[in-house]
């Protein structure tokens, strides 16, 4: 169902960082078009 979908992954330093989200999503067959980690404090 998710295969081939394009996603933007925004991670958080004290939670799940962007590259980790991207790796999981790519493993599930999604195309990560942009990923970034933000710090919200």
């Amino acid at each position, binding site marked *: 169902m998710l295969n081939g979908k394009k996603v933007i992954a925004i991670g958080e*330093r004290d*939670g799940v*960082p*962007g*590259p*980790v989200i991207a790796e999981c999503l790519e493993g599930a067959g999604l195309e990560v078009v942009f990923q970034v980690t933000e710090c919200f*404090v």
Partner: protein
Amino acid sequence: MTKPTKAKQLRLKSFAEIESLCHKGALPLYSDEKLVGCIEAGHAEDVNLSVDVLLENLAAKATAAHALKSLLSALKMDPNDVDYVISCSEEAVGDRYNRGGGNLAKAIAEEVACENASGSDVKAFCAGPLYAMVHGASLVQSGVCNKVAVVAGGSLAKLGMKFESHLKKGMPVLEDVLGSFAVILSPAKIGEPCMRLDSAAFHPVRAGASPQAMAECLAEKPLAKLGMKLTDVDRYAVELHNPEITVPSGSGDVPKTNYLTLAALAVIRGQIRKDQMEDFVRTRGMVGYAPTQGHIPSAIVYLGHALDALRNNEINNALFISKGSLFLGRMTQLSDGCSFLVEKSEK
């Protein structure tokens, strides 16, 4: 104290002169609604010397100098006895040819009349203060310096950082504090609190940025070097942002998240049971209380309280853990961190 040089004496201008400067582009400074001064750009074209940048840098310098002056006064210490000043403030002093060139430390030393001191800056986003402490303690331990001041001024840019979220929820603007700190590092004395330099840990490039990787690098591994477990630490100082500020703005309870990660690691290693995680957080952690000034809540804010608690035998040790968001500068996707243990010196 040495006498201030002529250049450092206050130069007061009349209100007419201030108003005239404001008309020419100077940034007016108010106390309530009253015009009390202004700040002029350092250069007509260089954005690094624009009024807002200079005001940011000046705020960092002034608040750091205030913290160091207060500390020296409380310790009844002669500023001339300081050998070296390390600034880990969050600013970028410099011109267009050397943006962020820095050495605000020496400017602070001059302001506080530490006439015998030189200095330099340590930059590492919010992790800067703990790196600065490790650098400063290393200078003392190696015999290069006898007394090192580690200081940081406040971040003007972070005042009201999340004010829109607060106002939307009918809350006042809570981020209204410029935080600063100063520490004097000197050779260890028996029975007095000291930094364990052999516990100092950094987050290496290869480590990965997950919270678990951070906890392993900055807590588990350095403690293991000392033959300690996660449960041998009486108090953890982590990112101590005040949740009253961060929860309404959607950033969550940052210290609690950090403590739960440490507790979860202790569960994975079999040091506590899963149903003891809340106890771990309650007894070894604390509620966040620091303003969202970045480098200030990043563990260092607890240092003074830790010294009191150690001297009063309320705790035997405290592990300081800070994190830095290097990725914000777009030069890497890495996070960063630094940690060290503080305990009473036995030798």
